[in-house]
């Protein structure tokens, strides 16, 4: 069995967080550049231009892209032939998160859900991280990370539709969520849609869908067609960049679908702002 040192995971996670906070990923930059070319509203084009300039400043001067440096969200695929030595992987990810957020002068945004007291001096700086684990074949550890901001999370929604609602019901629900959200989640957005499974499975799928690179197509032709159809519908809403009106409300729609109960059709919509800070490493 392969062994990986606890400390190596801590360092890798810390570096992942530092890089992601100041470097907008290439896929997102390309998508924004394309949106800038295609957008019909001058006001929205000006906003997108500012976003591209912001990404350049952040990268060159190592400044956080956004003051909302998010909650740290991880999807971890742990190979069944690898063992962490010197501690457990969950603690290592949390420790790397705390170090990364502190060293990068990123914002500590976790708080007690009732008193709203910041947890930086009690639980830890921007802790706890949100971690989803999966066990897979092999001896590698794959860590996907995203800094997930609050504004786009606040407009996200899940609902269990009756099976008869079908694809049309799903399209209507996504449109309703994005229409109600308007400019609040910082468009142009990426729309993560989780379909099927159970109530929570749909929600987790909608989150994971956002980790896919913008501009890549869904390998499943049926889902790919549904993604394109929803994208077209969402962009008819006219919300535009920062809600100021325009033709590019969303950069992409990403769907992950699962088998579900014969009685249910769960659907979850998780919205990602334009500052889609996501990245991954394999250890």
């Amino acid at each position, binding site marked *: 069995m392969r062994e990986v040192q606890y400390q190596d995971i801590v360092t890798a996670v810390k570096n992942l967080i530092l890089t992601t906070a100041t470097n907008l990923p290439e896929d997102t930059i390309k998508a924004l550049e394309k949106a800038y070319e295609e957008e019909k509203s001058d006001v929205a084009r000006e906003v997108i231009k500012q976003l591209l300039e912001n990404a350049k400043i952040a990268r060159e001067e190592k400044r956080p892209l956004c003051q909302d440096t998010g909650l740290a969200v991880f999807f971890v695929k742990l190979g069944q032939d690898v063992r962490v030595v010197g501690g457990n992987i969950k603690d290592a990810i949390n420790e790397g998160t705390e170090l990364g957020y502190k060293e990068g002068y990123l914002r500590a945004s976790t708080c007690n859900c009732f008193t709203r007291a910041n947890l930086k001096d009690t639980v830890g700086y921007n802790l706890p991280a949100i971690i989803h684990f999966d066990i897979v074949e092999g001896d590698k550890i794959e860590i996907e990370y995203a800094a997930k*901001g609050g504004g786009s999370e606040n407009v996200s929604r899940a609902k269990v539709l009756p099976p008869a609602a079908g694809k049309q019901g799903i399209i209507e629900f996504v449109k309703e969520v994005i229409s109600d959200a308007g400019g609040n989640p910082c468009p142009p957005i990426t729309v993560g849609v989780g379909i099927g499974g159970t109530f929570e499975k749909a929600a987790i799928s909608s989150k994971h869908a956002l980790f896919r690179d913008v501009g890549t197509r869904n390998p499943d032709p049926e889902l790919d067609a549904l993604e394109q159809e929803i994208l077209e519908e969402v962009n008819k809403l006219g919300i*535009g960049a*920062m809600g100021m009106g325009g033709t590019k409300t969303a950069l992409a729609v990403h769907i992950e679908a699962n088998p579900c109960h014969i009685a249910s059709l769960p659907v979850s919509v998780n919205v990602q702002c334009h500052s889609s800070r996501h990245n991954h490493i394999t250890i």
Partner: protein
Amino acid sequence: MATYHLTTPLSEEDVRKLKAGDVVYLSGTLYTARDAAHKRLVELIEKGEDLPFELEGSVIYFVGPTPPKPGEPIGSAGPTTSYRMDSYSPTLIKHGSRGMIGKGKRNQAVKDACVKYGAIYFGATGGAGALLGKKIKSAEVIAYPELGPEAIRKIEVEDFPVTVINDTYGNDLYEMGRAQFEVKE
């Protein structure tokens, strides 16, 4: 749609000339506040006590910045979503505040207060925190340091770029922009 360069504090004349969609470059002092600070300000007003800054003509920026790196006044500092301040803003406007900077739509009570008392809701580009942080030349916590990122800061800005969303005539750029580009079946 016009472009203006304005310096705070803003007068009623300053704000009455602005229309939804105008681009404004603000210079001078802004005060930062989010939900928690707003709650305390409104409580002070209700008790008739002094506020930590002069409200008359003030522009309040809804922001919770990242911590500054050594030698810098502030970290990244883009706007937060404004609706969380909707229940407090009308009181501050009634007592003299002339402007708010945030992102996202406001409720009718805020829009009505802008019309009645003469105030503007400006939108700044959400997620442009690195760019906007550079427009801030100095920052000083003047109240509620225990709130961390949510403390009230007095900040000095130079040509801080904002767009008029809600003006003193009841116009709303979000509604106007969307109506122009929405494709109805």
